[in-house]
């Protein structure tokens, strides 16, 4: 009986590893498809305020900050693809920047998410201010602050921050022009585009870049809708009604070719108001509004013990500011289930009821 050679052992190990690789490549994806990971939220909820976490983390706080950053990116990515709700974002970035106050990218990206996606502009601004306190030598933070103020139409603040950014020697002269634009209160699309393009230049963060590119696309869409809207009004003067859709305009030679929105979807024209909208952006907006409304309805049910009769009732009770009606959308509460559904009086969308837990942007 001889002892078995080490070649057999090496071969066995290789075989075992080889078996494992396809499992991870294929089966793992199968599981992921069906699994909703909410663990992120759980985890994030367990992080106490950064102030207390910092001394505890000790020498590992930078590492912890990195791990949190990874989590934050994951969180952002996941929710962008699904429900577009980012209510944990502020907390994460606060803790993150408490752990590592010189993590400039965290301030920048955090503020972006808060202002653009999470609907928390004041928080985003506060975050940037904190960033400036900790890192007074980083021009990007001043620029970002100016940028956000500009988009929020607070032009005085925007101008002053752009000026301060412009004072840094390494900064482009373009920034000074933004300051000028702010002073002139020029809230036009061209300036907005230039601003976003500047943002795109200043960052290596792919998420940031994606956000910037998305914003640029919305600006493209805005320009398109303005253009199509003008043509539609022309049409109305001629024919006494608005066109059914852009293809009618094209058919009658008002425009050359049927335009698609920057996301590949079609443009819609509202028959009564003549409003033009990108269907992609509309669906995103509607889904977001439905989510908000659903929360309101659930709150009402919890407080009053019953469903509200109409959404106006929730407005009366002070749970909702006003009922949105983008593009003539009518939001209703389904009897029995309490789900918020939306109906459109636009002929192309009529009859389609959209439920609030669908993933964003897939139904219209």
């Amino acid at each position: 009986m001889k002892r078995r050679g080490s070649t057999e052992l090496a071969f066995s190990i290789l075989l075992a590893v080889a078996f494992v690789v396809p499992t991870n490549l294929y089966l793992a994806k199968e599981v992921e498809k069906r699994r909703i990971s909410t663990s992120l939220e759980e985890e994030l909820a367990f992080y106490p305020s950064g102030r207390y976490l910092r001394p505890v983390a000790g020498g590992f706080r930078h590492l912890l900050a990195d791990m949190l950053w990874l989590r934050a990116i994951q969180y952002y990515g996941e929710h962008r693809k699904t429900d577009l709700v980012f209510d944990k974002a502020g907390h994460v970035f606060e803790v993150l920047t408490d752990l590592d106050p010189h993590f400039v990218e965290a301030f920048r990206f955090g503020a972006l998410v808060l202002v653009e996606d999470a609907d928390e502009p004041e928080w985003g601004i506060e975050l940037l201010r904190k960033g400036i306190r900790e890192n007074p030598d980083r021009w990007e933070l001043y620029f970002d602050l100016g940028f956000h103020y500009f988009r929020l139409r607070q032009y005085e603040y925007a101008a002053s921050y752009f000026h301060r950014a412009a004072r840094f020697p390494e900064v482009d002269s373009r920034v000074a022009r933004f300051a000028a634009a702010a002073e002139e209160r020029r809230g036009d699309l061209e300036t907005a585009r230039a601003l976003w393009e500047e943002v795109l230049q200043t960052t290596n963060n792919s998420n940031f870049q994606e956000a910037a590119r998305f914003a640029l696309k919305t600006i493209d869409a805005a320009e398109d809708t303005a253009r199509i809207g003008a043509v539609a009004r022309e049409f109305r003067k001629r024919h006494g009604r608005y066109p059914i859709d852009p293809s009618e305009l094209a058919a009658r030679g008002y425009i050359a070719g049927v335009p698609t929105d920057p996301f590949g979807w079609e443009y819609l024209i509202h028959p009564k108001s003549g409003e033009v909208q990108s269907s992609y952006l509309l669906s995103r907006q509607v889904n977001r509004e439905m989510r908000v409304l659903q929360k309101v309805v659930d709150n009402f049910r919890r407080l009053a013990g019953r469903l509200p009769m109409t959404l106006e009732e929730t407005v009366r009770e002070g749970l909702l500011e006003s009922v949105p009606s983008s593009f003539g959308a009518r939001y209703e509460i389904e009897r029995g289930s309490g789900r918020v559904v939306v109906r459109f009086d636009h002929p192309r969308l009529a009859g389609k009821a959209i439920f609030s837990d669908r993933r964003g942007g897939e139904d219209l």
Partner: protein
Amino acid sequence: MMESRRGAPARIGQVAVHTLKETVRDRVFLVSLLFAVLLIASSVVVSPLAAGEQDRVIKNMGLASISAIGLFLAIFVGASLVHREVERRTIYTLLSRPVSRGEYVIGKYVGIVLTLALNVGSMALLFSALVYFYLDSLSVAHIAAIYLIGVELAVVASASILFSVLSSPVLGALFTLALYFIGHLAGDIGTFAEMIPSRPAALLCKGVSTILPHLTLFDVKGMAVYGKSVEPGLLLSATLYAIGYIAPLLFLAVILFRRKDLQ
């Protein structure tokens, strides 16, 4: 007398049942069960402090306890299982029977899986009773979550058997524990790989992420707590995934054990 191949499942079964008996009678098992009861009970005591989130806290703590206690068993009992018998020389009389080394290792593994099943099963009963009667909100997702906890533990157990063949109980337990944590970070390593600028480092991370078990895949506690529905395809694919790891780990354990001289 008897054909050795045919008798293999029976022998594996005997080793497995014996392992189950041995482990269950060991104090460790009883203590862990006691701990489980304590933890689950304490979740009921603690939860009123949670200001309206009582539901969540009880469910979260309950599921976490099942996971933690089961993990403790899988690691500490598993890691010492083979080694203890070799150490104590009880294995001499055992292997002098017409049992092959492979049958022995697999029998030991099945034994510890049975033990875990017993342990997790008892905790599951307790938890389910609690959630059903006290919270009145037991759902399929809870059962699914517990099932997947069990499956994850089966994977961990196969690693601990492998390590118990290789080294001492203490080291084996440490290695298995380390593998557990790294398994939970495996996903992050993969994400990390996409973010690193350096190509070779990114490739290394990707490679490591492809070899490690992604244990987070078995975690559907969140789905259970938030009341999301679990489709059977998830359970099936997760079980297959687990087998995809258990098989090679046991295979290696058998190969390594066969080469071992039992001094």
